[in-house]
């Protein structure tokens, strides 16, 4: 089944192929005017090559379409595939790079030079400096250019796009000569006022061409036909050849002439090549000679230039010392002109002290002991001044084998001058060193003297230091005194309040004591009297109430008016006089609620007296209690004062409890704070610190005093004491006036105060700072609208 399909497929493809071959193949050919080989006339392509191509096309079932253009256009079209084939194109190696040519050629042509009729141009050299018109892109044009170049003939080539234009330009005199091909020229020449010269060149084989590597089949086919056509004398080729070219070559003689001419041409070509080669050889040799000559000249010039323009003096000197040749630099060095110098010897201008050594060297050289020498010596310039030079001499021979010296002379005056200056400076330096040494010796002596003075003044300084130390000690003492006096100032401010604190309990003590004296006497009298009259029941009640009363704990409370009134009414109901006073006494005794016990007293006489007696006895006891309490109160204040005023005379720090210290200080301030200042104590138990307690207390007093003043003794004073990181922190805050920013830096300065003159010493916070510093503590403060806090860290 499969093989069947394959068979059909193959058959089908075969049919298609057959069909394709049977169809006309269209070939586009270029054509240009090159009569009689190819040309275009009345819309029809004609000529020998066209006939041959058409003949082959007919045989091969091709349809040839001709595309007309100039030679240059055709040439370009073939390159661009616009046309497949170009008949009638001369072969050249260069063209073979881009085109493939038929092996066979159909015509042999050559280039020739036309001149204007009557012109005398007859050989190639006469083309020199002439204008020559030629076809652009033509192989003959290119060849002519080569020939002209080879012969060194200078001519101007004017390129045209058609041969007709070439001949036209000659006949019009635009150019003096022109290039045309033999065959085409023979067609055209009769139409123009031109004539052939004897100059012929570049015989070429005219072939067909296709673009390189394309249409090779076409070329093969053409070659096959060409070979057979050329082989058969009776073929269409020869027929057409005769037809197109026999216009001129009607006879066999002409044909012979043609062949003879060709032979001649080849001979002349060989000859011209020979001539050309000869000319080339001559030219090359001439050129080599000229170059050698030029090189010599240049070398000579270079040498001359080198000699003349050298930056150093150069001279040839005869063995007798005569200057033979000198350069300008040397003349400049010695100040003579060349002419003057050439009349002198080197001995003439050498400084006499330097001559001997120079001559010694010269002799040595003449005896072949040395080959060269270098010497620094002096010349006497023409103006008699001396110039230092560095001379280097060697010896050589001239053409006649005579010896002479070559001298190189370098001006070293500047260097010599510098050397001299250095030497002078050196000498000067040495002098200076000596000078300075002696100066130093003097200075040294002076220094020793100064040193002694310094030792003396040092002793003085030690003395001054001692006195300064003394002063410092005094100052320290003053500081101590200042702290002490500040303490006194604070005390002065506190004393009024403290006095009150002491006066109050004192008042109570004095009053109670006096009262007790009176009462006691009274009680003893009354007791003995009253016991004579009162009933036994009353006696029992008396002792009962007395016992109870004395057991009542002393406690001050405000009068219970309601109950007092009830009591008064009850007493009134017994018709008791002075019910008011009795009720008051009962209340004062503190037995007011024990109505059932004391009311029976009033059933008999002397009830009032019995109550009075109990009151007095209780009063006496109360007085004792008041005295005790008042004394404690006074003692507390005195203790605080004592602590405050205590001055530790010992140098050593002692243990101090910040909380109890602060309590002491607050006691002193009690009178100032109790009316209007809320004191908030946030006291935590803290470790005891080693300090000078009187000084630390002073810190608290100064800060609290400032705080109270800042809030005008109204507001909240908050004190926090706590321990953190093994330091004791004390924060004292008040909600009074803010410490304004502009004085924040100054508050610890001594004698800075915001208080009126006389109110503050301005030392308070300064002492605080100093005391805190003395205890290696720290003090910070922060003041805001809400509160101002001083934080002391110990």
């Amino acid at each position: 089944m499969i093989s069947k399909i394959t068979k059909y497929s193959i058959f089908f493809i075969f049919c298609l192929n057959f069909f394709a071959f049977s169809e006309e193949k269209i070939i586009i050919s270029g054509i240009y005017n090159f009569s009689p080989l190819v040309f275009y006339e009345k819309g029809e392509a004609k000529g020998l090559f066209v006939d041959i191509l058409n003949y082959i096309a007919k045989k091969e079932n091709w349809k040839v379409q001709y595309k007309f253009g100039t030679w240059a256009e055709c040439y370009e079209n073939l390159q661009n595939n616009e046309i497949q084939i170009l008949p009638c194109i001369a072969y050249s190696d260069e063209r073979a790079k881009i085109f493939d040519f038929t092996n066979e050629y159909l015509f042999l042509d050559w280039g020739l030079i036309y001149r204007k009729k009557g012109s005398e141009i007859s050989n190639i050299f006469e083309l020199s400096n002439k204008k020559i018109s030629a076809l652009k892109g033509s192989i003959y044009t290119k060849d002519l250019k080569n020939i002209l170049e080879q012969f060194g003939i200078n001519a101007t080539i004017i390129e045209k796009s058609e041969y007709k234009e070439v001949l036209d330009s000659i006949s019009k005199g635009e150019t003096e000569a022109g290039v045309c091909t033999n065959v085409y020229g023979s067609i055209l020449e009769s139409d123009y006022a031109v004539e052939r010269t004897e100059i012929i060149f570049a015989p070429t084989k005219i072939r067909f061409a296709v673009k390189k590597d394309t249409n090779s089949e076409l070329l093969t086919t053409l070659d096959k036909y060409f070979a057979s056509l050329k082989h058969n004398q009776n073929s269409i080729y020869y027929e057409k050849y005769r037809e197109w070219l026999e216009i001129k070559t009607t006879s066999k003689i002409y044909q012979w002439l043609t062949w003879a001419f060709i032979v001649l041409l080849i001979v002349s070509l060989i000859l011209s090549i020979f001539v050309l080669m000869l000319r080339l050889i001559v030219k090359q040799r001439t050129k080599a000679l000229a170059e050698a000559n030029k090189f010599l000249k240049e070398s000579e010039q270079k040498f001359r230039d080198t000699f003349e323009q050298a930056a150093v003096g150069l001279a040839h000197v005869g063995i007798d010392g005569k200057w033979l040749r000198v350069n300008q630099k040397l003349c400049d060095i010695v100040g003579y002109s060349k002419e003057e110098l050439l009349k002198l010897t080197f001995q003439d201008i050498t400084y006499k002290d330097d001559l001997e050594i120079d001559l010694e060297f010269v002799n040595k050289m003449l005896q072949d002991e040395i080959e060269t020498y270098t010497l620094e010596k002096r010349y006497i310039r023409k103006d008699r001044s001396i110039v230092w030079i560095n001379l280097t001499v060697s010896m050589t021979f001239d053409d006649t084998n005579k010896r002479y010296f070559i001298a190189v002379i370098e001006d070293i005056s500047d260097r010599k001058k510098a050397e001299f200056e250095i030497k002078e400076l050196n000498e000067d330096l040495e002098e200076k060193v000596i000078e300075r040494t002696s100066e130093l010796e003097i200075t040294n002596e002076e220094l020793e003297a100064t040193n002694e003075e310094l030792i003396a003044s040092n002793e003085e300084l030690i003395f001054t230091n001692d006195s300064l130390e003394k002063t410092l000690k005094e100052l320290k003492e003053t500081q101590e005194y200042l702290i002490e006096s500040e303490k006194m100032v604070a005390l002065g401010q506190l004393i009024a309040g403290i006095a009150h604190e002491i006066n109050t309990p004192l008042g109570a003590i004095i009053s109670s004591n006096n009262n007790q004296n009176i009462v006691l006497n009274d009680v003893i009298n009354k007791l003995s009297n009253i016991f004579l009259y009162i009933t036994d029941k009353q006696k029992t009640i008396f002792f009962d109430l007395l016992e109870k009363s004395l057991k009542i704990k002393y406690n001050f409370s405000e009068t219970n008016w309601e109950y007092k009134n009830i009591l008064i009414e009850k007493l009134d109901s017994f018709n008791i006089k002075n019910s008011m006073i009795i009720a008051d006494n009962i209340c004062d005794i503190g037995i007011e609620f024990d109505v059932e016990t004391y009311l029976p007293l009033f059933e008999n006489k002397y009830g009032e007296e019995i109550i009075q007696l109990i009151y007095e006895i209780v009063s006496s006891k109360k007085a004792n209690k008041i005295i005790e309490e008042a004394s404690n109160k006074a003692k507390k204040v005195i203790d605080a004062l004592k602590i405050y005023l205590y001055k530790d005379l010992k140098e050593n720090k002692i243990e101090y409890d910040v909380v109890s210290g602060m309590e002491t200080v607050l006691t002193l301030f009690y009178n100032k704070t109790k009316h209007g200042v809320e004191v908030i104590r946030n006291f935590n138990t803290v470790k005891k610190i080693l300090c000078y307690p009187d000084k630390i207390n002073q810190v608290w007093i100064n800060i609290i005093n400032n705080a109270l003043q800042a809030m005008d003794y109204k507001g909240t004073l908050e004190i926090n004491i706590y321990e953190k990181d093994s330091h004791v922190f004390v924060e004292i805050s008040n909600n009074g006036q803010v410490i304004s920013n502009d004085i924040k830096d100054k508050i610890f300065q001594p004698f800075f105060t915001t208080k009126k003159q006389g109110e503050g010493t301005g030392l308070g916070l300064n002492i605080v700072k100093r005391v805190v510093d003395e205890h290696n503590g720290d003090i910070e403060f922060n003041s805001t609208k809400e509160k101002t806090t001083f934080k002391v860290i110990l």
Partner: protein
Amino acid sequence: MEELDKRAIICVDDEAIILLSLKQELKTHFRDKFLVETALNADVAFKVIEKLEKSGFKIIIIISDWLMPGMRGDEFLIKINEKYPEIIEILITGQADEQSIKNLIEKINLQHVIRKPWYPNEIINIIEKLLSKVVE
């Protein structure tokens, strides 16, 4: 008890020991001549005055401390002077602020200033003198 004898002395001080001492001293001396009442501050004092008056007492003397929490003594005495010009006022003070005392004397015709600590009978003598003047 006769109506005429229903007289009272009021003591005002923020210190209880002072009040107790004063009361004892006055009661011991004057016995049933006067009722002696006490008040720890000005507010309480006004209440006491009110009660006593209701009960038909005539307040003859007010003895007041100077420094007290709340209304101060001088202020209190000025108010008393305005309301009860007939009450005799005695200032008792532990502090010697002479200028303030002078001002007060001028303002309320204060004639009696007792300084703490007072001497035995100092207050009694003053009151006796005052009473004799009143009787006259």
